[in-house]
């Protein structure tokens, strides 16, 4: 149905002079020229004029073109056949496949009420030593993975996919937002190779795609996860890499709409936009959504408004640190800011809780001693401090881990370490049982117990 005419074009935005009242906010409209089919989403209506954002490049658009309404808005087709398929942000498969006998669901529809939400779940071990020790998680949990550029967020996400998902045997949804297309392709190939592709559905709006695609990929992927949760009543794993890119895309759209920005140019509606998405990622009594969300930290600035807005919604956070990465210790985790709600004697048990406290005390003392050593040398330290110094270095090395998905970088096969072993090893290191083992032998190993035998 025809709704009006294009009256202006700039970058991603068009203005439409409306001739009727058929169109509303978030409706999809389209324009056809001799060569191209353009699609847009309406973002704002002021009297007779609607403002819409293009799904793709705007080259070739001109004034006076007729604008038509697409029935139903942005929808995603789904059925049991979504698993093993790859979708783009606007809900269509891009791997050349078709969804048979689909039903459709609008990508903005679902909203949970408080009574639907379920908050208790079993603990979920990831087999990554430093995560299980400092930041354990459980079903229905929302875990953030924060890090600046190039410190290993994506590798960690892939390791989690490998470990959690292979062990939990549940279906999952991967949403690629504003990340590298090469990685999307590699993930697809790896899943195919590992025989896991039939358990995962993917949605991509990658960094080469325009702001609209990057902003809406999350909605499309989420709709797939909701289908598995609501209609298939499953426990779903949702991986979002990277949620920050959605916020970034939204600020590009807000600029096009000439809205007033807040600090660092973010969209005025920053908090609203994040809440809208995050509140949908929850568990019900029928099924759960456990999510891992990578968060990019722009300019290594932890105080960034968008990063904070996202963190409000999470149950735990894992922070990756450039200083650790620089030392070649991966996963490069900053243990001081890595936290989880589950570090509580009632949930993980008294022993685990006490060991975390003690390990943090050692590492924070080490941080102070490091500066003293840099000036005075190690020999000036008291015997107690020397113990703390050497054991902390061993502990730090111990928390590096060979990862299954990083085998090509390290040449060392990955290791899945059980939490009981981690607790024993940490206790051993802190109490001096490893004092005679050279610190370099603790890097990139699984469990440390084998080192004691020889």
């Amino acid at each position, binding site marked *: 149905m025809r709704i009006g005419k294009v*009256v*202006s*074009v*700039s*970058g991603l935005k068009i*203005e439409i002079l409306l001739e009727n009242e058929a169109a509303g906010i978030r409706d999809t409209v389209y324009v056809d020229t001799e060569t191209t089919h353009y699609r847009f989403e309406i973002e704002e209506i002021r009297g007779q004029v609607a403002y819409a954002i293009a799904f793709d*490049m*705007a*080259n*070739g*658009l*001109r*004034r006076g073109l007729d604008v038509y309404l697409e029935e139903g808005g942005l929808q995603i087709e789904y059925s049991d056949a979504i698993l093993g398929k790859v979708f783009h942000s606007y809900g269509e498969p*891009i*791997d*050349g496949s078709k969804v048979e006998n689909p039903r459709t669901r609008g990508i903005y529809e679902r909203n949970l009420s408080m009574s639907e939400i379920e908050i208790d779940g079993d603990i979920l071990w990831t087999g990554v030593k430093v995560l299980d020790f400092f930041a354990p998680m459980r079903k229905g949990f929302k875990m953030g993975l924060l890090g*600046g*550029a*190039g410190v290993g967020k994506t590798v960690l996400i892939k390791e989690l996919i490998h470990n959690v998902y292979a062990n939990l045997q549940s279906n999952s949804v991967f949403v690629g937002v504003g990340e*590298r*297309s*090469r990685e999307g*392709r*590699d993930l*697809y190939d790896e899943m195919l190779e590992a025989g896991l592709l039939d358990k995962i559905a993917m949605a*991509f709006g*990658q*960094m*080469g795609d*325009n702001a609209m695609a990057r902003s809406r990929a999350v909605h499309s992927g989420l709709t797939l996860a909701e289908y598995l949760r609501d209609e298939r009543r499953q426990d779903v794993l949702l991986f979002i890499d990277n949620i920050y890119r959605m916020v*970034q*895309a939204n*600020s*590009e759209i807000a*600029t096009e709409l*000439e809205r007033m*920005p807040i600090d660092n*140019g*973010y969209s005025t509606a920053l908090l609203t936009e994040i809440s809208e998405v995050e509140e949908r990622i929850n568990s019900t009594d029928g099924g759960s959504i456990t999510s891992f969300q990578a968060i*990019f930290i*722009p*300019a*290594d600035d932890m105080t960034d408004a968008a990063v904070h807005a996202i963190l409000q919604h999470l149950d735990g956070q894992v922070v990756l640190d*450039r200083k650790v990465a*620089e*030392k*070649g210790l991966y996963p490069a985790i900053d243990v001081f800011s890595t936290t989880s709600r589950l570090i509580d004697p009632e949930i993980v048990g008294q022993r685990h809780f006490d060991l975390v406290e003690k390990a943090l005390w050692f590492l924070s003392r080490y941080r102070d001693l*490091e500066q003293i*050593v*840099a000036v*005075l*040398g*190690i020999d000036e330290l008291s015997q107690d401090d020397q113990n703390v110094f050497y054991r902390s270095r061993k502990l730090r090395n111990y928390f590096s881990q060979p990862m299954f998905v990083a085998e*090509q*970088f*390290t*040449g060392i096969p990955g290791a899945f370490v059980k939490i009981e072993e981690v607790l024993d090893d940490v206790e051993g290191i802190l109490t001096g049982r490893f004092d005679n083992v*050279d610190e*370099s032998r603790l*890097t990139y190993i699984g469990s440390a117990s084998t080192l004691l035998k020889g």
Partner: protein
Amino acid sequence: MENGIDKLISQKIEAMKNGTNVYQTGHVIAVRDYIVEISGMEQVSYFERVVIGSDSEGYVDAIGRTSVMVALTKKGSKIHIGDEAVAMGEEFQLTFSEESIGHVVDIFGEDKLMGQRFADSIQLPIETPAIPIMVRSSVVRPLLTGISGIDMLYPIGRGQRQLIIGDKKTGKSQIALDAIANQKDQNMLCIYVAVGKTKKEVKDVYNQLLKQGAMGYTIIFAAFNDECAPVLEKTPYAAMTVAEHYMRQGRDVLVVIDDLKRHADVHREISLLSGKVPGRDAYPPDIFYAHARLLEKGCQHMDGGSISILPICETKGGDITDYISTNIISITDGQIVLSARSFEQGQKPAINYGLSVSRLGGAVQTPEMKKRGSVVRRDLLSYLEQKEIFELANMDEMSQDLRDHMLRGAKILENLKQYKFALRTPEEMLRSFEGMY
């Protein structure tokens, strides 16, 4: 040559027959540097080519309700209010000649050294749509730079985007030039894109590559400092279109972009002049997308061709965590970080081995290089870290293990020293580490 002109003439005759040779016109109503506002031109398309006066040219940057904004790519004589503007009825495109190899060229199809246009040329779009995920394949074939510190420790593959980042005068461009020189007989087409460089600098690059015998397979795309900002902004995209043009014919292409910090600044300049809202550090919010869509052209295509990109980014005070740098790092598949301190200490290339990363790692190395490289890298990194702690300790009191470790580390670092255009083959690199393990 006749071919091109014949084609042009027959196209014009065709247009006259169909009555499509009627151009829309308008008049200049405002000028702000290289952004010109024009009234009229009712039916003009977004990104259409526009000619103003007799010798200025540009493209449609925004279509308003009553007027049109044109960004100038060529500024001829002075533009006056009321000057006539003509919409040319075609998209603003790149003019490219296959004969460009071996020359310094611009997006208008002109040979910058000879000062004349190529006789036979084709029109290509400035920007093409994103290369979809499903037509890509894994990056596995090595792209050798001839530099041990890169090929062994932080290797690059065909289809990879590897950032070269560091302060002024730390040898960033030199690494890229070494990499180009090392592509001789590797069946690689190289494109060096100079964004906002001086004419002197570009001429120097040309001479160096010529001397190395590398111009036989290299095109230099130049947008000089004093050209209209929109040209500087569009040139990298245009160069990428050319790279894609060759990749689709199954060729391997290496693109060097020198440099993206300058490109970001040009992008900011144009955005702010056009009245867009500034964000962090006054860059517009779409600065990430501007670089992401450019660098996402780098890929291994499933049909065999590839585009590898070595973008260069200049930092200040060795800070690689500023906004533009972290943006680009989060796009590329790894970074070679250069440090002024290493440079001053004579460690050349001045690579900071702790901060450099290759996200593809061993996947793009031969088994021998991968095996040796991963051991050398681990030893080197732990040496560099321990060096700081044990700097004051007495070597004689160290455990044998630790002392060996320290001595080996120092030797590795020495082994990685390499001066410009002193390129090594993988065999030479492996040989230099023989006997150490």
